[in-house]
């Protein structure tokens, strides 16, 4: 059963890899390029195949062998697209590395990264073995929905029964099974059970592991590609060194998969802005759409990405020109987004955050000052305790940022570099106001979700920060140049006659 489950994951990986490769610009191949593509492949593959399972089930009322057949067809289409693209494009192998010498710093960071990765992997395995059904939200939302999809077959829509929600609505928290939540994680689990020929607890743990470690791999590799090896290793280390990130991943919550798609979107948009290669834009659109197919918050993040992209533009363009310029983004996000809309319109009940909310009630909450104080305090407390670090990591990073300084490039470069962090800050502001508007008991809502919600943004925040900061090499070079300038100035002062 384990091998068949792993086989199902391998098929998803091939689908993802072929799709990424088909749209990936092949002009300059570097090992970090390959690493980024590998990191993207599993998540995108799982996302695409979860859409196919949902559509198969909703149209034909069964999955099983049909899902596997559809997977194979998508796989072949992806491989064909990749083949066409690779024939058209010209491979240019990377020239010999200009950074062949391994510095002591790089070696130390490499060793530290390996150690953190090993501890995180073993810890993840231990937590998964201890709680194979995951944390409460995992088994009562994602794995429960997976059971409806897999066991229910043509009657899978029973998961939307008001009877299921009714019992729970007597609590202040509302229906805990969240029947309106999108199905990427649940459908991925049900899909692997189809491959395995039965339910295995290995499937949800495997999916959780793939998303957790793909996120770390993506963060590291995309920064290695865009900035430097040391910068990538540092960011990857901070993420892998975040105990709550590993623990939430092992809890099988959908926050880590959403974090993966948000990071992938920002990283691909950055690569597009640097190269103007439309493949990146298409892929960014698809990862943004898959984020919306993962969790409701993904829809908000998608809107935030578009908002920042359209507003923060160095040369203001007319709306039509902006739309034309970002057409690839919309094309990429269309398939998953249409699936989300179909799911929401055809099947899902209204979300408990908006259902039955009158404008008056919302307005009252928005103008209640004490809510701002409560939410503000909760956000500030995260500065001290975020990620379950034994030191306040945000302060450590602030100290490190002061030491190495920000990248001094100006103009478009500066905007490109600061766009991801700007997006994260806007998303965080969005979450702040979601809490202000929350119809639930505020202390309960903050206590049960704020750390998870912020974890959705954490990998992207690290990407944005380390993109913006000087790499250690840049900081040292800057200091050397400054030192030389100071020395020359001193010499000039001591020997003015020479001039």
């Amino acid at each position, binding site marked *: 059963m384990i091998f068949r489950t792993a086989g199902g994951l391998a098929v998803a990986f091939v689908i993802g890899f072929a799709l990424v490769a088909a749209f990936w610009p092949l002009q300059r191949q570097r090992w970090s390029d390959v690493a980024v593509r590998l990191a993207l492949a599993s998540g995108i593959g799982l996302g695409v195949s979860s859409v196919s399972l949902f559509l198969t089930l909703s149209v034909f009322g069964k999955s099983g062998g049909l899902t596997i057949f559809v997977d194979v067809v998508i796989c072949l289409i992806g491989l064909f697209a990749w083949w066409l693209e690779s024939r058209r494009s010209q491979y240019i192998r990377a020239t010999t590395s200009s950074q062949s010498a391994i510095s002591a*710093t790089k070696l*130390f*960071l490499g060793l*530290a990264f390996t*150690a*953190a990765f090993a*501890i*995180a992997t073993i*810890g993840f395995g*231990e*937590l998964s073995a*201890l*709680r*194979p*059904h*995951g*944390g*409460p939200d995992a*088994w*009562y939302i994602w*794995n*429960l929905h997976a*059971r*409806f999809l897999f*066991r*229910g077959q043509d*009657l899978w829509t*029973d*998961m939307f*029964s008001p*009877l*299921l929600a*009714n*019992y729970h609505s007597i609590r202040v928290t509302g229906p805990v*099974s969240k029947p309106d939540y999108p199905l990427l994680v649940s459908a991925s689990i049900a899909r692997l059970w189809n491959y395995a020929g039965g339910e295995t607890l290995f499937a949800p743990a495997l999916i959780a592991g793939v998303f957790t470690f793909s996120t770390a791999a993506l963060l590291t590799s995309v920064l290695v590609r865009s900035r430097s090896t040391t910068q990538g290793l540092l960011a990857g*280390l*901070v993420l*892998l*060194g*975040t*105990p709550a990130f*590993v*623990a939430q991943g092992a809890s099988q919550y959908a926050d880590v998969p959403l974090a993966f798609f948000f990071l992938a979107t920002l990283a691909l948009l950055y690569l597009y802005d640097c190269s103007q290669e439309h493949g990146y834009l298409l892929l960014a659109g698809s990862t943004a759409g898959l984020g919306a197919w993962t969790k409701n918050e993904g829809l908000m993040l998608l809107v935030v990405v578009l908002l920042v992209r359209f507003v923060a533009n160095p040369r203001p363009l007319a709306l039509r020109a902006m739309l034309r310029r970002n057409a690839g983004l919309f094309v990429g996000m269309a398939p998953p987004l249409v699936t989300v809309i179909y799911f929401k319109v055809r099947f899902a009940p209204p979300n408990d955050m908006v259902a039955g909310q009158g404008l008056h009630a919302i307005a009252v909450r928005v103008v209640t000052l004490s809510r701002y104080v409560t939410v503000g305090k909760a956000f500030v407390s995260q500065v001290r305790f975020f990620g*379950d*670090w*034994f*030191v306040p*990591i945000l302060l*450590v990073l602030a*100290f*490190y940022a002061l*030491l*190495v300084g920000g990248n001094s490039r100006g103009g478009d470069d500066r905007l490109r570099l600061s766009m991801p962090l700007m997006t994260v800050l806007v998303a965080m502001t969005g979450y702040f106001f979601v809490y202000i508007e929350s119809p639930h008991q505020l202390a309960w809502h903050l206590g049960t979700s704020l750390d998870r919600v912020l974890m959705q943004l954490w990998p992207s925040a690290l990407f944005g920060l380390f993109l913006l900061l000087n790499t250690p090499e840049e*900081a*040292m070079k800057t*200091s*050397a140049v*400054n*030192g030389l300038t*100071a020395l020359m100035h001193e010499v000039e002062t001591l020997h003015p006659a020479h001039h």
Partner: protein
Amino acid sequence: MAALGFTLRVRAGALLVALLAVLSIAHRFPEWLSLPSPNTDHGIQVSAFDSQFKPVLRDLPSHGTVGYVSDELTTGDNRPSFWEFCYIQYALAPLIVVDSPEYPFVIGNFHKPPQANRMSQLKLTLLKNYGNGVMLFRGTSQ
């Protein structure tokens, strides 16, 4: 000299961040290895209920709604234990479990033997006792 000092500080800063990251993940590691209390940990409880209710699932129809009864509570709150209800719903999906005895099949989840007169008041007929307080009743339709 100043530049050299700064270079060292940058290098030390990067290494410090790396070291703190390794220590941060390492300091939680022993906690992850230690077993939590099986009575309070949802992850362990849900596994136990999932195994316990597997035989019940075989005796029920593959779809539809089943009722649920639990111990009679002496307090004003007559809701069953919220978490136990959730574990059972999870175990029995895609069946929908409703906190009511007014269904053709009713699941019993008891911590002490149920009193016969209460069961007859609820018009429940025992179909099967699975042990450990897990029972299946025939109830009355709504």
